[in-house]
């Protein structure tokens, strides 16, 4: 028997974990159409789009991934999870699939109104450099998974605290660095608006959209697998993650 990773066993773990998590996922998934409807009542361009994007981001890139191990509140829940006959890697990747990949797909789906060619110039993502946007979102979702893994039910509050501190630090640094940067002649990175062109071309836009999705999903998947590998190779972190003290 392969004690590290077995596809059949992994699929059983995914089914097992999803059966326990589907209500939570469904609640989160149901929350977005509400904000979508609110956004639709205004306009999908202008101020509604950044709000739509922010709501989707908070829900699916922060809140849900940070809940990756939130259900392991008590020793009893840990016992049933840890004694399930599957490897630690299978259990962790199954959680990653449900609490990171699925929310990422929900996030992309939720942002779909903002991914129309008409919305390109008004959307916050497309007014920024593509690589930076994907990188920031990727970093944030990974940070949420990491906080959720290490701190379990306290993952989200601690993540929010961390993000608030990070934001304050960035603001302070940017204010103090403004004078310096003003004197430097930076060439801005090529934005999507320029990359796509000013003319709206549906075929080209769709191709770019596919690139965004592919870049996001593939890079994040690779980074998350790397993250999981690093975590599992660190004994102390592994103990913290797997909650070995069930008393």
């Amino acid at each position, binding site marked *: *028997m392969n004690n590290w990773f077995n596809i059949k066993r992994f699929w*059983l773990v995914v089914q097992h974990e999803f*059966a326990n998590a589907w209500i939570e996922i469904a609640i989160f998934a149901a929350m977005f159409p509400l904000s979508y409807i609110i956004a639709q009542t205004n306009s999908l361009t202008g101020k509604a789009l950044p709000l739509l994007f922010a709501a989707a981001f908070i829900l699916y890139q922060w809140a849900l991934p940070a809940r990756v191990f939130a259900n392991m509140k008590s020793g*009893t829940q840990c016992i049933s999870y840890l004694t399930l*006959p599957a490897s630690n890697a299978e259990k962790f990747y199954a959680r990653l699939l449900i609490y990171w990949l699925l929310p990422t797909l929900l996030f992309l789906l939720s942002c779909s109104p903002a991914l129309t060619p008409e919305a390109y110039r008004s959307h916050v993502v497309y007014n920024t450099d593509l690589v930076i946007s994907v990188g920031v979102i990727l970093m944030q979702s990974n940070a949420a998974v990491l906080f959720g893994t290490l701190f379990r039910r306290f993952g989200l509050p601690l993540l929010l605290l961390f993000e608030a501190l990070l934001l304050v630090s960035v603001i302070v640094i940017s204010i103090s660095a403004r004078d310096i940067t003003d004197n430097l002649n930076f060439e801005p990175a090529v934005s999507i608006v320029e990359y796509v062109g000013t003319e709206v071309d549906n075929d080209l836009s769709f191709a770019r959209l596919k690139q965004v999705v592919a870049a996001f999903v593939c890079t994040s998947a690779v980074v998350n697998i790397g993250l999981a590998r690093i975590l599992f190779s660190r004994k102390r972190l592994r103990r913290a993650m797997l909650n070995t003290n*069930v*008393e």
Partner: protein
Amino acid sequence: MVTISNLQFNYGSHEVFSNLNLTFDEGKIYGLLGMNGAGKSTLLYLMSGLLFAKQGSVDFNGHNMSRRSPSALADLFIVPEEFDLPAMTFERYIKLNAPFYPNFSRETLDRCLQGFGMTADMNLAHLSMGQKKKAFVCFALACNTRLLLMDEPTNGLDIPSKSQFRKVVAECMTDNRTIIISTHQVRDVENLIDHIAILGNQQLLFDMSVSQICDHLTFADCKLGQQPEGAIYTQPSALGSAVVCKRTAADSETPLDIELLFNAVLANTESVKQAFAAK
């Protein structure tokens, strides 16, 4: 089957086990006894890989349990004292969990459920704690794992269910299986267990089979003032006093009184051990 070697385990500065050595053989039902805080549950958690020993090892059929490998976990099932069952039908629970256990038997499950007067078409969310425990014990037995660990399995069961518990466990016992029952409710497992291990003072105080115990000790109630000579342990009882004595060739075998034996071991471990040293 299970070999515990030089086990040392602490909760912070509190030492639970110090150089504990113990072996559990297959084909036996073990009663794991001890005072509160003696480490019965901790030992079960160490055996199932939920806790890691500070020193020493727990070996189950060649698997180091701290690695928690899927092949070892597929052959082990733990019924904790308290557990959570998801809010779903029992049929769905079986469908999701049974594939992890290669020896799972639906026939055994149905037979055990029938013994408790239950069926699989129930919703776990609507069950009382005792009913959940019965359903979980049935599932645990039906998994047919070679090692079954049960922590206080009769807590929360009603009186008829306790006797039914003994019956279903005895029916599911096989020669290549080991069942370890940690309990304070010794009356609930009387006539079921065939080996007793008593933990205390971070050590294994007593480890004998029921047949060995009955060969070397006698348990009797005596009227006041009629205590036999050479009693190892005496405690007050309704009739006068309950006594544990070393069995001599002239003594006939007496039924095992686990509660009395437990008290005797805790009060006078060395004298009890000496009774087994030479008959």
